[in-house]
């Protein structure tokens, strides 16, 4: 599988939103243009992506430098609604796997039925011994895990892609 490359894109902005989906959806659309994603899916608008994480949680992906500003606007827009906005960009490590066969490397680590994963599906899963989330990105996959295990995750992915 030598045609699979593992790379670490620069820091990426990530914002966790908790609250009722319809409340979060309208605010996210207003601030970023992203439609409210369906269950287990993600939606994209320009440089933004909104990812469905759980029945009351979204993850908004944006430029790293922009995250604080976006979070502030989301908080303002949410006003008195029962919702929580938290920047989590630095809590995460991000990897990109490129190559048409990249899912084969991931299938060694994650119990995911890749051929049946929808184009715009985001999957929260387990990558060997750590939690991870993944979705299609360009010609490959974007994988997110916790920052503290970035070293382990990179070795895992490189080993699986070898």
């Amino acid at each position: 599988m030598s045609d699979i490359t593992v790379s670490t894109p620069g820091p990426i902005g990530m914002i966790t939103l908790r609250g009722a989906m319809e409340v979060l959806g309208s605010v996210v659309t207003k601030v970023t243009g992203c439609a409210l994603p369906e269950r287990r899916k993600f939606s994209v608008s320009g440089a933004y992506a909104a990812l469905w994480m759980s029945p009351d949680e979204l993850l908004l992906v944006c430029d790293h430098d922009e995250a604080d500003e976006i979070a502030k606007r989301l908080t303002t827009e949410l006003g008195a609604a029962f919702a929580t906005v938290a920047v989590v960009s630095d809590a995460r490590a991000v990897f990109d796997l490129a190559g048409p066969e990249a899912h084969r490397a991931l299938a060694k680590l994650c119990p995911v039925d890749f051929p049946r994963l929808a184009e715009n599906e985001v999957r929260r899963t387990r990558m060997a011994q750590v939690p991870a989330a993944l979705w299609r990105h360009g010609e490959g996959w974007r994988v997110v895990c916790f920052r503290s295990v970035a070293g382990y995750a990179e070795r895992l992915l490189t080993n699986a892609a070898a």
Partner: protein
Amino acid sequence: MSMRLATGGRVIDRTRPIEFTFDGRVMRGYEGDTVASALLANGQLLMGRSFKYHRPRSVVASGAEEPNALMTIGKGGRETPNVRATEQLLEEGLEVRSQNAWPSLGLDIGRINDFGARFLPAGFYYKTFIHPRPFWKHVFEPFIRKAAGLGPAPTRPDEDRYEFTYDFCDVLVVGGGIAGLIAARDAAADGARVMLVERGPHFGGRAVIDGDVIDGQPAEDWVKAVVQELAAMENVTLLTRCEGSGVYDHGYVLCDEAVSGPVRQRLRRVRAGHVIAATGALERPLSFAGNDLPGVLLASALRDYVVAHGVSVGDRTVIVTNNDDAYRTAKVLIEAGLRVPAILDARTEVDSPLVSEVKALGVDVHLGRALAKVLGPSHVSGVAVCLQAGEGAVMQEISCDCVAMSGGWSPVVHLWSHCGGKLFWDEERAMFRPDPNRPPTGADGKGFVTCVGAASGALTTAEVVASASNGTPPEVEPETTTPIAPVWIMPHGAGAKLRAKMWLDFQNDVKVSDVRLAAQEGFESVEHAKRYTTLGMATDQGKLSNINGLAVLSERLDTPIPQVGTTTFRPPYTPITLGALAGEAKGDLFQPLRQTPMHDWHVEAGAYMEPVGHWRRPYCYPKGRESHAQAVEREVKTVREALGMLDASTLGKLLVRGPDAGRFLDMLYTNMMSNLKPGRCRYGLMCDENGFLIDDGVVARIDEQTWLCHTTTGGADRIHAWMEDWLQCEWWDWKVHVVNLTEQFAQIAVVGPNARKVLEKLGGMDLSAEALPFMAWAEDELGGFPVRVFRISFSGELSYEIAVAAGQGRALWDRLMAEGQPFGMTPYGTEALHVLRAEKGFIMIGDETDGTVVPQDLGLDWAISKKKTDYLGKRGQMRPEFHKPDRWKLVGLETLDGSVLEEGAYAVARGTNANGQQNVEGRVTSTYYSPTLGRGIAMGLVARGPQRMGDILRFTRIGKEPQEARIVSPVFYDPEGEKQNV
């Protein structure tokens, strides 16, 4: 002597010779050979020694069920013990070694056990080695361990690569014989995503060996065509050398795949909608005296060697059977130019075309006859013939060098049974078959495993294809056969002497006499008899022996076979190596280690790291030739006198927010959190429902609806889950969100009298005692870094904990380290942290607590709200046990001579308890050398401790006399708290 036949061998390539070594001797085989067939071809009949009696053994089978021919393959980092020679494919330069023989395979001193066999009956170990007890450890065990055993475990690290893959399919077909191929083709035609796994290197199973005719073509051609058809389909995955090893709940199936290439073995973890077990059947041996001698093997296995590999086991083969199938072996042998002097058929009447055909070839068929015993001594030299109905009186002897036996067939029902599929006993076929009405059921209550082909109990090719197809089955000529006559011992009336030479379990050396003895001694349950005799407990898990063994048990107990039942079928079908089970998890992928943003700095600074959960944290930073103790002492003193810095990033940071957050935290902590003012911090305790202390930490109120709860390092994930548990399951209508921000922030503790100076040097915010008093926090910029500064102290010194986005943690750390140099800055590790907190009498979760300690035991009554109507643990703490006057409570301890108490030492009390053990009245929970005070300090829990100030207790020391220590206040340093509040 070569036993390779001049022609034949459908799986070997005679143009590709391969050299290998067996016990150091160079031998030759062909590509396509197994180690077993190559050894036979080289005239090497002797392949191993039995486990208990060290009897000489050769192959009895040709596949997964082989009990005897276990080899150690490879060497060094590529050594694998207990590999079945019948399944190991020959490779160039393969190193094969025999096992369980000393000093050598040919001359084995352990064989002496055989002559003493009457001294080693069932349960011998249990009976003999119980008394005298010391004899077991010093005399019997070392001897038995040397004499009995399989291949030794490899001692070198495994050099090979292993991996998992996660596969998904609608239909998983296990077994690539004709039944599996038909089932896969039918499922694929319906559009299902199909995986077909075959454990051997070839598709087609027995049909190809036995020359079946399907759809008017030889089986070989038919199989080739179907495999091609399947391979061309997008929705079908075909795999050979991949065993369906175990079926688990929810259609989870473990498949063990042998791979050639950089990866040696691949464990496929398959989630299947439906499992079709086309796993075939195993031929049963017959139990006659001497059935374990080299040269005696299963009739079907002999066909395999002749047809597939072009090797013979002997020139003259006597066939002994109770069913028609073994007659095929006669045909095969005669076609190969070998002799069959006689067929001994235990049945008295036989009338089927196959038998007539064999008779027409000139073979003498003796009906109603049995094999009285095999003539040896070390391998087959002939057989003694008797009546099956009699007691073994020898009627004639026939000279031969091979015996082919067939006791009937047992469907491979393992995969059906792993998840609870039930069996029924088919009297006519003398076999346990899967009961289609009682399959293993999935979440929908429906069966998720189906057995087809021989695995379902089909005996003829016509039955096999009919059972496997859900459409129109391929055309196969129906066959007329004479039913099997169940034969469990041969001859029927064999006496004790013959029974003691009839092997049931070849690998564990269990004989008919052993099972009968177990029954006689009261081990009537099949599971008890199994464990008492070790029948079926070897690495082959009784594939050949279980049915014969339980039939012998059933006869001895006069209980029908179905009532005796089978032992439990457990995965995996054949042993899986530990390397395959570990997958990628070895070396630096063995376990994920968690690293803080400053981890690399610690490593470069020469920190000695210690594990804290999955984290690695600096324990201390030794300079030059400093010992760890010296480094800790220096770090503690520097913090007390000047300035130190600790990486506190691992502390849990849970954001709790919402209109009900205050109410929620009031329930979780023992003290009030709802009345904390924004901008302020408060230390809090968390208890479980029973009142026991489970975590502690500082809570900061961020704004009206938001709190940030710090947990212990080990508590971050646990307390997050604990909060979610209460919110999701109990207080689901409370409006509270919890977000785990532990990894979002790096946290740096800047500690010591010079702490404010260094922060002011970075500048950007007001850090004066007025602007940021003790137990306050502020959000601002420090030296250009956006930070939250918490003025909290776990050391008793002036102290700030600075949280910064993790991505900037290292930069801030570097900056503080540089700017701190003029003020005597030192990094300090977890051990200095512990000493500093112990000097102040601060408790540590996990040291002062162990799941049995309530906060009141630790003198933390001040942190328990008396006003609140409820909090988690309040009711538990009302239990009378916690209010007993002699409860062990927290005190400080100092030795009279200034030395350090031992970790976990107990305070000795008068007398002994009911078990004759020394009474105790307390124990040490934390103990350190205090560099600040220049002597040992400790905390401990002592009965009525706080009321006994000044009392002297005696604490245990390992290997020494107890040590005296005085009860004192647990706060050893700055009891007024002046230093932290400046």
